[in-house]
């Protein structure tokens, strides 16, 4: 995969938006963090939104959010997808409640 452009864009996240790393490597504390990261990158690769839109959404989410980096990342992704119309807030809330109630098989 020719990801050097993408590496560059992802690396351009800096300041509070910089990705958590250990010795330069990305650090995911739990599988969902990697999934949230991967979804944002894949959807951008597929042309669902420009990376700059995601970055702006992330910076906004960090500004208003708590200290958990990937929770802000997920919030940024969700609100961007709601704006682009890929998902609605209601269907995400409903689906999430089904997962919490153990009514669905996990997808990861």
């Amino acid at each position, binding site marked *: 995969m020719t990801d050097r452009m993408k590496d560059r864009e*992802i690396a351009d996240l800096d300041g509070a938006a910089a990705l958590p790393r250990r*010795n*330069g490597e990305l650090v995911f504390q739990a599988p969902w963090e990697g999934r949230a990261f991967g979804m944002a990158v894949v959807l951008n690769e597929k042309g669902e939104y420009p990376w700059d839109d995601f970055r702006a959404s992330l910076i906004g989410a960090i500004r208003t959010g708590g200290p958990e980096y990937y929770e802000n990342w997920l919030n940024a992704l969700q609100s961007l997808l709601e704006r682009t119309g*890929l998902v609605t807030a209601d*269907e*995400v809330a409903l689906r999430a409640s089904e*997962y919490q109630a*153990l009514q669905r098989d996990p997808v990861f």
Partner: protein
Amino acid sequence: MNDAHDDHDHNHNHDHGDGHHPEAPNAVEARALALESLLLEKGVLTSEEIDRVVSYYEHDTGPMIGAQVVARAWTDPDYRRRLLEDAPGALKELGFENAARTELVVLENRPGVHNMVVCTLCSCYPWAVLGLPPTWYKSAPYRSRAVSEPRKVLSEFGCELPEDVKVNVWDSSSDLRYMVLPERPAGTDGWSEQQLTALVTRDSMIGVARPQVPTSSPA
């Protein structure tokens, strides 16, 4: 880290008969599950596409590639020579096909000569072997001071060099990237390649640090 993950191995008091759902996901995790499952259903992406991206960033880029190359060069003089002459070829030898597509030059630290890498114009960096660059690498102060006062910058990184060591600063460009081959630390005779790999830090391959032997490790 989320609290709910901190107690990941808490009492598994679920009925083992129902197997698949040992514990309910917390709210954030449930939202990640919800988003992925909705996107899968809508046919916008596939699980494999996400797997591929996560795996690429977790395993196929990053300092581990550079560290493995350095450890091999420390243990195999012929490999070291090939690495310094033709870095892409030497990367390919170890199976790093993706990284081998970078125009890369490896700079050898040796007694009396220390190399460090900067990109004065922007943030050119050997992603393929070192992963994502640290934020400081892209900062204006590093980019200018690495050239104007490299010794001072090095000492701020905790890398104090004797006066008689010559410091060479290399300016990366989009056509040519540099990686430093640090000196093998003393006290590592007989170490396996794997043990050595663990000593090689990202910063030592940018040339702002030297690999250190932990004081408690077996010599």
